[in-house]
């Protein structure tokens, strides 16, 4: 199946694509089965009174989320967002224009929750919530990676991701969930991580890594698991434990901690930074998954929580953890208070691994040989959730500057991609938001188009041969998709993979 998918041609002068209505009408992920649904407390299959249930849930969400409430009313159909979505650019399906995607829900909102839509549905484009409409929701809201690029350009900041999350929550509540995301969330609760890697296997993997690094460098770099009393708890996406190129970044983190003399540990309970509760727009799941990390931190008695290279995990950690679990400041429930007392007063908030490394570099705590990366000409892909939903360091824009600063300190050759495709205007890799599943391969390949075009430019003009990123989903997605565009899959890797190459372990330890 995958072989038949053709990547769209790269365009030399990207213009707004013409519309191809219905081009992606058939694209949809597998539906979650009964077991996966019920494990999360959702109905096993589409319930008989789904329409009533869906509208009921929608009404609750409208009351609970100001974003949804305001965004359902405020859009003027100005079209500023229309050409900003990578899925529209890549597929030309008009329903992948952000406003058209919102309209799938807005049309229903108008019909049932607005005066105009109740009285004159045709006039304002209001529709009954029929089974066809529900199917359309399922297909097209599963073609949104919740990347929020549209929100940057909308004059009112309308964030299609908020609408998509609401839609996925409603679909889950009527028993029409998506297999990939819901299965993963089940695994997090049952086993501890998205990939379903049990504790003993994790231990083996880490021992193996210790041996590998020893072989490579002659130095005993440790990969500790569940070590009570460590200073730092590292929470990282489980892909870092064995997927390529992810694992090279894990090695990078370990070397950084090793050289800086920081005692750190991973946790088998919180062996996953990712939080798919965000992708499915379910506050309860978002919170439950986040609470595992608080529990692990309390059990291990750590002084600081550090998050590895994972885009949406960092958004959740930076923007939501304090709200969800009180990791931060200001919470008053007993566990949060206990944790606040336990954590180093300088690091009550979660840190990104890039913040840790950059801080050490600035203090001269790492010995780095830039030449070691001379075989690489590097560019950086800003991951959506880091770029548009979080921050690093003490000042606005730190999430852009810090990873780039690290790359510049560990390598000599660095170039940025076109400004319309970086920083807050970055294009999604095409696989975020719970879409990183094989049955959506066509969507993923096409959605990568704008990023591939920007990459081709720096490849042609500067000979770039390495695209660094700090997101597990980006890494997995690009590894799969790069070959469709004629690039080598090894071109993508983590920032800490570069750090790992440059760091001179013998020198300072």
């Amino acid at each position, binding site marked *: 199946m995958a072989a038949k998918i053709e990547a769209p041609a790269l365009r030399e002068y990207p213009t707004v694509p013409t519309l191809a209505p219905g081009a992606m009408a058939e694209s949809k992920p597998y539906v979650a089965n009964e077991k996966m649904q019920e494990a999360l407390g959702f109905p096993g299959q589409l319930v008989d009174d789904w329409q009533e249930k869906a509208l009921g849930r929608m009404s609750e969400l409208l009351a609970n989320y100001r974003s949804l409430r305001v965004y359902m009313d405020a859009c003027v*159909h100005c079209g500023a967002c229309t*050409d900003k979505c990578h899925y529209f650019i890549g597929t030309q399906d008009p329903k992948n224009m952000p406003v058209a995607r919102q309209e799938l829900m807005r049309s229903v909102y108008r019909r049932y929750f607005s005066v105009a839509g109740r009285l004159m549905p045709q006039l304002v484009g209001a529709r009954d919530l029929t089974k066809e409409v529900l199917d359309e929701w399922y297909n097209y809201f599963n073609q949104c990676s919740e990347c929020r690029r549209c929100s940057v350009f909308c004059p009112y900041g309308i964030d299609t991701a908020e609408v998509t999350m609401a839609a996925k929550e409603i679909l889950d509540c009527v028993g029409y969930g998506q297999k990939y995301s819901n299965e993963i969330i089940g695994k997090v609760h049952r086993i501890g991580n998205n990939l379903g890697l049990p504790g003993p296997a994790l231990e083996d993997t880490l021992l193996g890594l210790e041996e590998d690094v020893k072989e490579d460098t002659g130095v005993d770099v440790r990969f500790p698991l569940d070590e009570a009393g460590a200073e730092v708890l590292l929470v990282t996406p489980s892909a870092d434990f064995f997927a390529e190129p992810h694992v090279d970044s894990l090695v990078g983190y370990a070397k950084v901690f090793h050289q800086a003399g920081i005692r750190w540990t991973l946790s088998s309970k919180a062996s996953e930074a990712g939080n798919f509760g965000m992708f499915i727009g379910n506050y309860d799941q978002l919170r439950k998954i986040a609470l595992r990390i608080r529990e692990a931190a309390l059990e291990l008695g750590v002084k600081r929580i550090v998050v590895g290279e994972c885009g949406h995990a960092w958004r959740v950690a930076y923007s939501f953890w304090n709200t969800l679990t009180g990791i931060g400041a200001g919470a008053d429930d007993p566990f949060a208070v206990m944790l606040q007392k336990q954590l180093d007063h300088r690091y009550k908030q979660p840190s990104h691994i890039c913040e840790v490394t950059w801080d050490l570099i600035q203090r001269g705590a790492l010995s780095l040989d830039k030449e070691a990366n001379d075989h690489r000409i590097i560019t950086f892909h800003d991951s959506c959730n880091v770029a548009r939903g979080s921050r690093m360091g003490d000042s606005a824009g730190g999430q852009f500057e810090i990873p780039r600063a690290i790359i510049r300190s560990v390598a000599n050759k660095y170039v940025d991609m076109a400004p319309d495709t970086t920083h807050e205007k970055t294009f999604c890799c095409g696989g975020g938001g719970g879409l990183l599943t094989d049955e959506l391969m066509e969507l993923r390949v096409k959605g990568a188009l704008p990023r591939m075009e920007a990459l081709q430019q720096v490849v042609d003009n500067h000979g770039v041969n390495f695209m660094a990123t700090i997101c597990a989903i980006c890494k997995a997605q690009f590894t799969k998709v790069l070959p469709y565009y004629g690039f080598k899959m090894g071109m993508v890797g983590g920032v800490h993979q570069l750090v790992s190459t440059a760091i001179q372990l013998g020198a300072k330890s």
Partner: protein
Amino acid sequence: MSTASIGFAIAFYLAAAVFGAGLALRIALYGRTPAPLKIPTTPAPTTAAGVAFRMFREVAFFESLFKANLWLWGLGWLFHVSLALVILRHLRYFTEPVWGWVAFVQPFGIYAGLAMVAGLAGLWLRRVVLERIRYISTPSDHLILALLILIGISGLMMKFVSHTDIVAVKAFFLGLMRFDWQPLPSDGPLYVHLSLVVVLLVVFPFSKLLHAPGIFFSPTRNQVDNPREARHLAAWAARLEKN
């Protein structure tokens, strides 16, 4: 007093009530609805003053739109700035004595009337010509533009073609405000102008014109990026912590 005058008087009272109450209720609803999570979009200010400045730039200059699409920004901004000037100019019908600065904007208001119609025409053209904007347009999008253009043209008619007795118009509106009804001049363009304004007032709280209050409540634009410093918790989410 003519039946028409009485009709307009009643219509304006009703329209003003629908507009005022409808808008107030919507704003109260927006204000009451919690935003459970911190979701400001980058570049997000880290202080409340920064947010106020960002909001000012969005409302006064349409900053995000500027980044998105220059043509749309140009036409949209032309229309809105002109609309603002036209409305300021209209304040003279409702204040006695006319405030100094309202008197000052009078001359600009006339050009603004023309610019407003031009901007609207451009926006409409865009809506009809560009395939993807046509695709997302509903009949109501066209009707709103038609409504505003007709209000503008009927106003310009009065200004440039067939004058109306604006002193009497003013007396009529001051009379409405003071509950001391005065007759309205019986001129075609004026009737058209005012009837359409009544429609605009009634439609406002039930249509996409809610974008005007909406922007101030948009969490991606009005939140401070400080989740590390201050805990942000909605009341309904706080209740979960008790379980």
